[in-house]
């Protein structure tokens, strides 16, 4: 519902109308027109006026003291006929918002001791009484109550947030200002895992500790900010590898304490969804999100990024990325398997071998409509290769790779498109490292077009695990006025996607 009044910044043309109300509201202690003119045109002043049907009904002013991060409410007046409508609150909220924008940490005001209505309003806006000035209002001989509201730096609309990500094998430090990406530095330990054919948790955790400071330094240099400017620290506290997550959690907490800034514990998977904000300025909802990586294969219905993320389904065995790695090993290809299989499949026939599609049969679809299973597919590929080897026949690597990839992509996209159609959500967002797979992008594009679904694929550097997405969610939480996390949270390897922030 729109309000019956409009609020805008005042200028000298409003002076006459303001003076009329000034005399009406402050019979014995009204300011002179000259003083009011000084106020309206002053450099560090912020005056707003409210009009209803072309008549001035209220005004308010703020005096900003930016060097000390404070401001004072100079005046607020609402014409008697317009009182009790919420206009006074609206004006005050505008002043507070301006104070926050101006990086003020405290707002002061004085209020007549006999004006209980106003005091109640200020209390409800977060002001508290800090002092009394005896007989301040003359000639009425009334005390002034001095009140103060403390504004968290975190309440800034465009907070500068540093995000730390360490849930798997990438150490990520990202810096955002509101929805603007300033830095996204990722240090991957992928090469260290290559000889093991998959991510080794202990190797990943050790690598995080070593990568932490260099990654932080590079991010700060890229963003051209210093740590003192940071308004808040955000960290992924799950889901992921426990030992790896803990490095980021310990680091983020100590950084937040040393800077005396709030910390926000953020869900890694929600980060993958929220990252679209950094490219588009906002996340269009509702949206279906398909997150595919070496550790996750999840299908989400996002009605609201911070409040309503529903897990529709996930893998019941291997993650899609894991299946690529394992099949790459079967075919004698290198780690990580995704790009290697993509390369090998380039000249292959995707229809050469009909590999099984996990959980796509009608009976499975009843129970697992949005779940995934890649373990059977991996075994089918291994068996196919073994049979050929036993017969002494050559393994057509290109065809096997292409047919395997087609099976994975087919299941991923079919289930995601089903989710869009079932829930009448015409949007699909992809995230996770496996999104790098060219065939997956092609098929998703094609099927989404056929079904009138808008497809969003963020830049690859934002699709893989990164700190920027964690910072982006932190900034959203702050902008939404969410309270900071306590210092007690831990790493939760199985953190449910419904828990966007751990308090």
């Amino acid at each position, binding site marked *: 519902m729109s309000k019956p009044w409009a609020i805008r910044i005042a200028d000298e043309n409003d002076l006459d109308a303001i003076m009329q109300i000034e005399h009406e509201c402050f019979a014995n202690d009204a300011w002179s027109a000259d003083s009011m003119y000084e106020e309206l045109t002053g450099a560090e002043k912020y005056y707003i006026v409210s009009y209803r049907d072309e008549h001035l009904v209220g005004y308010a002013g703020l005096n900003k003291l930016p060097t000390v991060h404070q401001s004072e409410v100079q005046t607020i007046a609402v014409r008697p006929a317009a009182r009790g409508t919420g206009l006074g609150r609206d004006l005050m909220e505008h002043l507070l918002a301006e104070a926050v924008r101006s990086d003020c940490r405290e707002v002061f005001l004085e209020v007549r001791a006999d004006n209980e209505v106003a005091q109640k309003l200020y209390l409800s806006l977060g002001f508290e009484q800090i002092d009394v000035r005896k007989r301040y209002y003359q000639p009425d001989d009334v005390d002034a109550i001095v009140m103060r509201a403390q504004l968290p730096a975190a309440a800034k609309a465009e907070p500068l947030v540093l995000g730390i990500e360490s849930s798997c094998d990438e150490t990520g430090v990202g810096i955002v200002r509101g929805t603007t990406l300033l830095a996204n530095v990722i240090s991957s330990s992928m090469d260290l895992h290559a000889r093991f054919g998959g991510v080794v948790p202990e190797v990943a955790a050790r690598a*995080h500790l070593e990568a932490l400071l260099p990654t932080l330094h590079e991010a700060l240099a890229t963003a051209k900010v210093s740590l003192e400017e940071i308004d808040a620290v955000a960290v992924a506290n799950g889901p992921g590898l426990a030992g790896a997550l803990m*490095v980021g959690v310990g680091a983020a907490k100590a950084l937040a304490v*040393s800077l005396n800034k709030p910390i926000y514990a953020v869900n890694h998977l929600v980060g993958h969804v929220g990252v679209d904000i950094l490219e588009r300025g906002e996340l269009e909802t509702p949206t279906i999100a398909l997150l595919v990586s070496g550790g996750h294969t999840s299908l989400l219905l996002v009605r609201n990024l911070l409040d309503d993320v529903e897990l529709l389904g996930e893998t019941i065995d291997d993650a899609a990325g894991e299946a690529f790695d394992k099949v790459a090993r079967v075919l004698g290809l290198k780690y990580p398997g995704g790009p290697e299989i993509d390369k090998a499949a380039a000249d292959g026939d995707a229809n050469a071998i009909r590999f099984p599609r996990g959980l796509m049969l009608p009976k499975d679809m009843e129970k697992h409509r949005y779940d995934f299973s890649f373990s059977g597919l991996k075994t089918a590929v291994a068996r196919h290769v073994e049979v050929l080897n036993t017969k002494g026949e050559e393994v057509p690597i290109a065809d096997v790779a292409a047919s395997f990839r087609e099976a994975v992509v087919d299941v991923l996209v079919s289930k995601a498109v089903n989710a869009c159609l079932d829930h009448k959500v015409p949007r699909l967002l992809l995230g996770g490292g496996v999104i790098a797979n060219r065939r997956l992008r092609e098929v998703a594009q094609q099927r989404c077009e056929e079904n009138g679904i808008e497809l969003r694929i963020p830049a690859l550097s934002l699709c893989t695990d990164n700190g920027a997405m964690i910072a982006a969610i932190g900034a959203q939480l702050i902008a939404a006025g969410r309270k900071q996390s306590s210092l007690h949270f831990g790493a939760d390897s199985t953190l449910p996607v419904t828990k966007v922030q751990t308090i």
Partner: protein
Amino acid sequence: MGATLAIDTSAGTTVALLRNGQVVAEANYGSNMGHAETIGTAIAEVLAAAPDAQVISVVVGRGPAPFTGLRIGIAAAMMFAEGAKAQLSGVVSLDAIALLELEGNSKISAASPLLVTTDARRKEVYYAIYSGLNPHGVPIRVDGPAVIKPAVLEEMLIDKNITPIHATKTITAVAIAKLAEAQLRDGSLSHDVTALYLRQPDAVEGQFGKKVSG
């Protein structure tokens, strides 16, 4: 005068704040679990005891310790130092235990040294041996730190004809800070904060060709 923040998570979580060599506050959480949960509160707790203190030095115990918990203290120390623009140094956690034992204990000598052991899990221990304190008050480590099976350690001591005095004290961040002070005096304080795992990660290099058909 600046303050020193000391952190060790090689066993439990222990954090201390010192100024002019005096302990301002310490927080000791004995459990060898939950380091990630505890570390932030522990640091905030000791800092709250002296809100005006400016931390100019952060010292952390590098272990040895089995993996996960150890990293949390080191990661926290690194980042705190970064945020506070403080000097970062690392010490061997076993040396800090030795300091606790050696201060005021004149019985320990090269002939009857101090043996410090801590649990390394997997039926092994970390150990180091000390012959006393040097003139600056720094423990003189003559063996270790290393990881070993208790039976093998036993044999080794018999072979070398050593009857050590066994350390019984537990690590504290205060001891970490005092050790760093002593090392600063004799010039041996190091900025190296790499974790002392003393073990390779458990991982088997890629196994190929596991049969899946009968």
